[in-house]
C-alpha cells in the first residue's frame, strides 16, 4: 500500500495537466469518498472534447489497472471512446476493454461495431489490431462474430493480419471449444500459408487446438522445414517442438540396429537380436534428414529457447553419432542468466545419463564456483556425478574435496551424497571414497557428519562382509567423535553388523555402558538397541552388560528411553510371562534391511520431451503432448509429397523481378532456396489476385460508411454530436429519467445504433403491425413450475403484438394458473434486476386469483436487442419467486412492411460483415414454399415481403429498429441458401442459427 501511494505521488508529479490530484492516499481521508470523487473527475475528462484530457484520463486509468486497482466502474465512460480518433487514446481504451470486457459483457458488446468497422480499414495495422481486440474480449455471445472475422482475416492480403488471425484461433477455442471443427478448417488453410510471418503463429494455434491432427502437417512438412530458419525465433521454438513429435510418428528409429556401448541396451539387444537381423538395413528417410539438416544452424541462435529446442530435437531424433553437436551449444548457454542455467542443467542432467560421452569433453565447464547459487551448484554436482567414470573419477573426486570445504552446508551435504553415488557406480574408487567419507566423520559440522554417516551406512549395506575393517575403524572413532548423531549412527552400524565384528562389538557396548548416563538421548537409544542385538546374537558375553544398560535406562529421566528399555526387556529377556513375540525377537531386530539404492533423480526422465515444463517438474503438466515411441514400420512417406507445378511456373517471374532474388535471406544454398523463393513469389501473386475484389468492395463500403473517410471526419463528428443531442432532447420528453441515461449512453457509444434511430425518425420503413402467426401457435415457456410455485404455475409466451404503452418493448403474455387450494393474492412484479439499458413495464397487480382459476396479463420488456435474460421477482402476498425471462432472438424483432424493391435496396446496403450466408439442406417436410414461410415466421417475428420471387422476410429490432432482412433461396434437391442481413451482427448470427435449426429439423 505504501509503495502504491508513493507511486501515485510520482504519477502526480509527472502529469502535466494542471488537474488537482485527488487523494489516492488512504491517509488523506476516507478512501471511499475520495474514490468516488476521483472517478467522477476521470469521467469528466473522458467526456470532454479534448483529446489531451482523454489521454491523461486514460493514462491514469491504465496506471490503476497496472497496480491492480479496480477501475471497472468507469467502463461506460471509457468504452465510448473506443472510436476516438487519437490513436494512443484508442490503444489505451483497447487495453482497458480487454481487461474488463469479461466482467461487463453487455456494455462490451456496444464497442463491437467499432471493431467490425476496423476490420475493413484499409490500414493493415488497424485491421489487425481490431481483430486482436475483438478476439481478446472474452464475451461468449460474440463467438459467431469472432469466427467470421477470423475466417475473413485468414484470407486477408496482409500476412500481418493473417498472423493475427492465427493468434485469434486459440483465443476463440478457449472461449468456446465447440468451434473446434470450424477452427481446424482455418488452421488447415493457414498452415498452407507460405510466409514466415504466419508459420510460427499458426503452428502455435495448431498445438493448442488440435495437436492430435498430425495428418494436417504432412503436406506442409517440407515447407515448414525449409522456412524454419527465416521464421522469427519464438515461432521456431514452437515449430521445432511440434516437428519433433511429428518425426517420432512418421520416421523410423535411426539407432535401431546400431550396436551401443550402453550395457543396458546391449542386454535388450540380445533378446531382440533375432528380430533385428531379419529387418532391412536402416536407411534414413530423406525428410528425416531434411529436418536434422535444417535445424542444425539454429544451434547458433542467440535465443536460448531455440537452442534448447534444437538440442531436444537432436536428442530425440538424431542417430547417436550426430547427437554430440548439441553439447557445445548447451555448454554455451551455461554462461547465460542463472535461470537459463538452471533449466539447461536440468536437461543436461537427463541427457548425461543416456549419453555420457557427449558431455565428457566439457567436464570442466561444470565445475562449481563459490559464487554460483546453491540450486545451480547442486545441479552441476548432479551432472558431474553422471559424467564420472574410471578415467576421470580422480579429477572429479579432487574437485569434490574442495567443495566439501565450502561454507554452503546444503551444498556440502549434496557433495557427500554425490561421492556416495560415485563410489557405488565405480567399484575402483569405492574404498577411496569410503576412506574419505570416514575422515569426514570427524568434521565439526553436524550436517556433514550426519550426511557422511548416512552415505557410509548405505555403502556398507551393499557389501558389509568386505568392510569389517571400516566398521572396526568406526568403532574406534566412538572414542573421539562427539557429535551425537554420528555416535548414534556408528552404534547402529555396529549393532546391525555385529556378526562381522564379533570381538569388538561387546567391547563397544562395555564402553558405552560406562558412559551411558552422560550420553545424549539419541545415543542412549542406540546403546539400548546395540545391547538388544548383542543379547540376541551373543548372549553369553553380553547378558550382564545388557541387563546393566537396561537397568540404567529404567531410571533415566527421559520417558522415551524408559519406555524403550521396558519394551525391549519384555521382548528379549525370556520370562514365564513373555508372550509369543519373544520367539520372533531375533527376526524383529536383525531382519535383513534392504540396501538403499543410490541413483540419479534424473534417471528415466527422458520419457518426457526434453526442454518441456513436464520434464523440468518430472510431472505431467496440463496440455503436455506425449512424445510417441518410434513406429515399428514407417508410415507411407508419400503423404508429404506436394505437387510442384505452381513454382516451376513462378520461376520465370522470379527472374523478371530482380528484387526478389535476395529475398530468402538466410537460406543461401540452391537446394533450399527454391521452395522458399517460390513461396514468397507465389504468395505475392495470390495477394495481387485478391487485392482487386477487395478494392472494389471497400469502395462500396465507404459509400455507405461515412466514418471511414478520415479527412472529413472532424466536421462530421461535430455534426454528429449535435444531432445526437437533438435526439437526446426529443427522447427526454417522453422517457423516464432512468431510461434517459440508458439511451444517452446507447446513443453516444453505439454509432450504428444511432444511425438506426434516424431510421426511426425517417418515414421510410413504415412499421405495419401484422400478426401473421395466430396466437394459438405461439410457443409457451414456463416461468414458474407448479411445485416450486407452491401451487401457482406461471407460463409466458411472446404474443407478437405491439406493446402499446411503449413501442420499444417486447410484449410478453403471462398466464397465471392457481392450482392450489387457497386463493393467491396481490400478484405483482418486484425488484427487477436488469442489465443496464433494459427496462420492464410491469403488468397491473392482480389482486385476487381464486383457486383453480387462470388469468392472463401482458407485460412489456425492453431487452435492449440482446438475448440476456430479464430477471425479476414475482410476488404473491406470501412468497417471492425469482424468475427470469430469456427471449429467443426471433422475438426481439417486429415485422415491417416492405416492397421487394425496398428489400433489395436495403439488402444491398447491408453487405460485408453485416451479411451472413449459410448453405443448408431443407428437411423433407419443409421443402414447400408454405412450409418454409411457416417455419421462418415461427422462428422469428418477421413478415414476408409480398410478391417476392424468393422467400424474403423483413423486420426490425424492437429497441433500436435495426433492419433485419432474411431471404431463403431454394435450389434443387432440397438445397437452399439462407441469407441474413442485419446491422447488429450478434442478432444476425444468432438468428441464422435459429432459422437454420427451424428449417433443418
Amino acid at each position: 500500500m505504501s509503495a502504491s501511494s508513493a507511486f501515485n505521488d510520482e504519477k502526480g508529479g509527472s502529469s502535466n495537466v494542471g488537474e488537482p490530484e485527488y487523494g489516492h492516499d488512504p491517509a488523506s481521508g476516507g478512501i471511499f469518498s475520495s474514490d468516488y470523487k476521483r472517478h467522477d473527475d476521470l469521467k469528466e475528462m473522458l467526456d470532454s472534447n479534448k483529446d489531451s484530457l482523454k489521454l491523461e484520463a486514460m493514462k491514469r486509468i491504465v496506471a490503476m489497472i497496472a497496480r491492480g486497482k479496480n477501475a471497472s466502474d468507469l467502463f461506460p465512460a471509457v468504452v465510448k471512446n473506443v472510436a476516438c480518433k487519437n490513436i494512443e487514446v484508442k490503444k489505451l481504451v483497447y487495453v482497458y476493454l480487454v481487461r474488463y470486457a469479461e466482467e461487463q459483457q453487455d456494455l462490451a458488446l456496444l464497442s463491437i461495431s467499432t471493431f467490425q468497422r476496423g476490420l475493413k480499414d484499409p490500414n493493415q495495422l488497424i485491421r489487425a489490431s481490431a481483430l486482436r481486440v475483438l478476439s481478446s474480449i472474452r464475451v461468449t455471445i460474440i463467438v459467431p462474430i469472432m469466427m467470421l472475422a477470423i475466417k475473413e482475416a485468414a484470407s486477408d492480403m496482409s500476412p500481418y493480419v493473417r498472423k493475427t488471425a492465427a493468434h485469434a484461433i486459440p483465443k476463440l477455442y478457449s472461449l468456446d471449444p465447440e468451434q473446434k471443427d470450424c477452427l481446424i478448417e482455418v488452421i488447415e488453410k493457414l498452415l498452407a500459408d507460405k510466409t514466415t510471418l504466419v508459420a510460427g503463429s499458426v503452428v502455435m494455434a495448431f498445438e493448442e487446438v488440435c495437436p492430435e491432427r498430425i495428418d494436417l502437417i504432412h503436406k506442409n512438412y517440407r515447407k515448414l522445414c525449409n522456412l524454419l530458419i527465416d521464421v522469427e525465433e519464438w515461432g521456431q521454438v514452437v515449430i521445432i517442438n511440434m516437428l519433433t513429435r511429428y518425426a517420432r510418428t512418421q520416421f523410423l528409429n535411426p539407432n535401431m540396429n546400431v550396436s551401443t556401448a550402453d550395457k543396458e541396451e546391449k542386454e535388450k539387444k540380445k533378446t531382440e537380436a533375432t528380430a533385428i537381423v531379419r529387418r532391412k538395413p536402416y536407411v534414413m528417410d530423406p525428410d528425416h534428414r531434411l529436418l536434422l539438416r535444417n535445424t542444425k544452424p539454429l544451434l547458433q541462435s542467440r535465443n536460448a529457447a531455440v537452442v534448447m529446442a534444437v538440442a531436444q530435437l537432436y536428442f530425440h531424433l538424431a542417430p547417436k553419432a550426430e547427437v554430440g553437436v548439441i553439447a557445445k551449444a548447451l555448454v554455451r548457454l551455461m554462461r547465460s542468466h542463472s535461470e537459463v542455467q538452471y533449466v539447461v542443467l536440468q536437461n543436461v542432467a537427463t541427457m548425461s545419463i543416456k549419453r555420457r560421452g557427449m558431455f565428457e569433453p566439457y567436464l570442466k565447464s561444470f565445475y562449481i564456483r563459490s559464487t554460483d547459487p546453491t540450486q545451480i551448484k547442486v545441479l552441476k554436482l548432479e551432472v558431474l556425478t553422471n559424467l564420472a567414470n574410471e578415467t576421470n573419477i580422480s579429477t572429479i573426486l579432487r574437485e569434490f574435496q574442495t567443495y566439501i570445504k565450502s561454507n554452503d552446508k546444503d551444498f556440502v551435504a549434496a557433495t557427500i551424497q554425490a561421492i556416495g553415488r560415485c563410489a557405488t557406480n565405480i567399484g575402483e574408487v569405492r574404498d577411496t571414497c569410503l576412506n574419505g567419507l570416514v575422515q569426514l566423520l570427524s568434521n565439526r559440522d553436524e550436517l556433514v557428519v550426519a550426511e557422511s554417516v548416512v552415505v557410509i551406512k548405505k555403502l556398507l549395506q551393499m557389501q558389509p562382509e568386505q568392510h569389517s575393517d571400516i566398521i572396526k575403524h568406526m568403532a574406534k572413532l566412538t572414542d573421539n567423535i562427539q557429535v551425537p548423531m554420528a555416535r548414534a549412527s556408528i552404534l547402529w552400524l555396529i549393532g546391525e553388523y555385529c556378526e562381522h565384528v564379533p570381538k569388538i562389538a561387546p567391547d563397544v557396548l562395555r564402553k558405552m555402558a560406562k558412559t551411558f548416563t552422560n550420553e545424549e538421548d539419541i545415543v542412549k537409544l542406540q546403546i539400548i538397541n546395540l545391547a538388544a542385538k548383542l543379547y540376541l546374537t551373543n548372549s553369553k558375553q553380553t547378558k550382564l552388560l545388557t541387563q546393566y544398560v537396561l537397568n540404567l535406562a529404567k531410571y533415566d529421566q527421559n520417558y522415551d528411553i524408559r519406555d524403550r528399555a521396558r519394551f525391549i526387556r519384555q521382548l528379549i529377556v525370556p520370562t514365564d510371562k513373555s508372550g509369543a513375540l519373544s520367539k520372533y525377537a531375533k527376526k524383529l531386530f536383525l531382519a535383513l534391511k534392504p540396501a538403499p539404492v543410490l541413483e540419479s533423480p534424473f534417471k528415466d526422465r527422458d520419457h518426457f520431451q526434453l526442454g518441456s515444463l513436464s520434464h523440468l517438474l518430472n510431472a505431467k503438466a496440463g496440455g503436455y503432448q506425449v512424445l510417441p515411441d518410434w513406429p515399428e514400420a514407417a508410415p507411407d512417406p508419400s503423404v508429404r509429397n506436394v505437387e510442384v507445378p505452381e513454382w516451376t511456373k513462378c520461376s520465370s517471374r522470379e527472374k523478371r523481378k530482380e528484387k526478389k532474388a535476395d529475398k530468402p535471406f538466410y537460406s543461401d544454398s540452391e537446394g533450399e532456396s527454391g521452395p522458399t523463393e517460390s513461396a514468397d513469389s507465389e504468395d505475392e501473386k495470390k495477394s495481387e489476385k485478391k487485392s482487386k475484389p477487395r478494392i472494389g468492395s471497400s469502395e462500396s463500403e465507404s459509400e455507405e460508411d461515412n466514418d471511414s473517410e478520415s479527412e472529413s471526419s472532424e466536421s462530421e463528428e461535430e455534426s454528429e454530436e449535435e444531432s445526437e443531442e437533438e435526439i437526446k432532447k426529443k427522447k427526454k420528453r417522453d422517457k423516464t429519467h432512468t431510461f434517459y441515461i440508458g439511451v444517452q449512453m446507447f446513443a453516444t457509444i453505439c454509432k450504428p445504433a444511432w444511425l438506426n434511430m434516424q431510421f426511426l425518425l425517417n418515414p421510410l420503413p413504415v412499421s405495419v403491425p401484422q400478426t401473421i402467426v395466430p396466437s394459438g401457435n405461439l410457443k409457451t415457456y414456463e416461468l414458474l413450475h407448479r411445485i416450486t410455485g407452491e401451487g401457482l404455475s406461471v407460463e409466458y409466451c411472446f404474443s407478437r403484438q405491439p406493446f402499446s404503452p411503449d413501442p420499444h418493448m417486447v410484449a410478453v403474455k403471462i398466464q397465471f394458473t392457481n392450482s392450489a387450494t387457497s386463493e393467491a393474492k396481490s400478484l405483482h412484479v418486484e425488484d427487477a434486476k436488469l442489465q443496464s439499458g433494459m427496462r420492464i413495464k410491469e403488468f397491473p397487480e392482480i389482486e385476487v386469483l381464486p383457486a383453480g382459476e387462470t388469468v392472463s396479463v401482458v407485460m412489456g420488456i425492453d431487452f435492449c436487442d440482446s438475448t440476456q435474460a430479464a430477471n425479476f421477482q414475482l410476488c404473491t402476498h406470501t412468497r417471492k419467486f425469482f424468475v427470469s425471462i430469456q427471449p429467443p432472438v426471433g422475438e426481439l424483432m417486429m415485422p415491417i412492411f416492405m416492397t421487394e424493391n425496398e428489400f433489395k435496396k436495403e439488402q444491398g446496403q447491408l453487405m460485408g460483415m453485416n451479411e451472413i450466408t449459410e448453405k443448408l439442406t431443407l428437411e423433407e417436410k419443409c421443402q414447400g414454399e408454405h412450409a418454409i414461410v411457416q417455419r421462418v415466421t415461427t422462428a422469428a417475428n418477421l413478415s414476408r415481403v409480398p410478391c417476392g420471387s424468393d422467400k424474403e422476410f423483413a423486420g426490425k429490432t424492437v429497441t433500436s429498429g435495426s433492419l433485419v432482412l432474411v431471404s431463403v433461396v431454394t435450389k434443387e434437391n432440397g438445397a437452399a441458401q439462407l441469407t441474413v442481413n442485419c446491422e447488429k451482427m450478434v442478432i444476425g448470427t444468432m438468428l441464422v442459427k435459429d432459422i437454420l435449426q427451424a428449417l433443418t429439423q
Partner: protein
Amino acid sequence: MIHSLFLVNSSGDIFLEKHWKSVVSRSVCDYFFEAQERASEPENVPPVIPTPHHYLISVLRHRIYFVAVIQSEVPPLFVIEFLHRVVDTFQDYFGVCTEAAIKDNVVVVYELLEEMLDNGFPLATESNILKELIKPPTILRTVVNTITGSTNVGEQLPTGQLSVVPWRRTGVKYTNNEAYFDVVEEIDAIIDKSGSTITAEIQGVIDACVKLTGMPDLTLSFMNPRLLDDVSFHPCVRFKRWEAERILSFIPPDGNFRLLSYHVSSQNLHPLRSASLVAIPVYVKHNITFREGSSQGRFELTLGPKQTMGKGVEAVLVSSQLPRGVLNTNLNPTQGTYTFDPVTKLLSWDVGKINPQKLPSLKGSMSLQAGASKPDENPTINIQFKIQQSALSGLKVNRLDMYGEKYKPFKGIKYMTKAGKFQVRT
C-alpha cells in the same frame, strides 16, 4: 502460453500486473513468496514453481522479480528468455530497469507489454519494430507532445514487420555514417591453491553500434577466425556464409546490438590436459592461515601481472567472502583501499592499476571469535580486472566492408579484456 505477469520488488510488493488472458488473482504470487522465504538467498528462488492450478516462472533482474503465470505446458526456457527480453527492452527504453523507472513510465510499459505478447504468445520483440510502434520517451518528445497533441504511438505497421529483415527499419538517415564494433572478452577461470589453472575459458562478444543510412550490407572478416570455438549470432548474420568462408555478412539493425557471442576454450578434446591455450593475465600469491586455539589469523595477498601482452591491468578489484568466524581484520594495503563488512564478512579491496615494478599487496591479521575452533574452509578470492586495447584470445578483425550504399562510413574497432568469473581457491 504466458497468462499474466507480476512484477515484485525486493520488499515483496507486487507493483505491476498485466494479464493477457482472463485475470489471474494476484494471490497466486503467495506461492512465490513462500518459495522466496524458503530460499536463503534471493537468487536461490527456483525459477519454476508449480502451484495447484498454475506454474510460476520467474527471473530476477535488477532486484526485481518478473513472475510469469503459466497454465499449461510450455518450454520453460521460452518464458525465461522472453522475460529477459522484456527486461532488455525496458532497459533500452528507459536507460535503467528499476522499480522507479517502470512506475514513472507505467503507460509506456503497458503499451510495450501489450505489443510484445498477444494472447500470451510473443508478437513483436524486435527493438526496431517496437520503437516504431511506441516511441521511447524523451524529454523533448514529451514537451512536443503536450503542445502539439501528437502521440508516442505509431499509426502504421512498422516496416520491419513484413520485410525479410525485420530487425531493420527502412528510411534510416544519418548525416554522420558510423559503425563501431567493440570486441569484449571475458575470462572465466578457476585457479587452485597451488596456482595452477583448473579451468579457463574465454567468452567473447562483439557489440556493435551502427548508424548507417539506407540499407547497408556489411561484411566483417577476422585474421584468425579458426580461433572461435563456438559462436552464436544475431539473426541478421548469414549463417551459410559463415560456414563456408568464415566471414560475417549481415544487414545490420539500426543502433546498438550484439552481433556475435563466441567461446574460446582450452578443453576441446583433452579434458584432463591442463589449460594452456588460455593465458591467465594475473597471478595471486596468497597465504591465509588460521591456527588452532589462537584467536588470530594471518592474511597475505599479493597480485602480479602475467602474460598481459604488454598492456596494463586496470580497475582491479579483489573480493573475498571470509569465514563466519572472522570478527574483524587489520590489514594494510600497499595501494588502493580495502573494506571489511563485519556483518556479511565480505572483504573487498579496490586495487586500481597494477604496477609491475611495485606489486600491490594486502597484509595483516584477522581476529577470530575467541574460543571458537579454527574454520575449516578457506575463502575463495574473486578478482575483477580490465585490460584495454587487447583481446586475450588474440582475435583480430581483418576488415570491414560495406556494400549496397554509396557513401563512405566511419569505422572503428575497440578491443577489451575483462575478468568474468575469475576465482582463486585458497
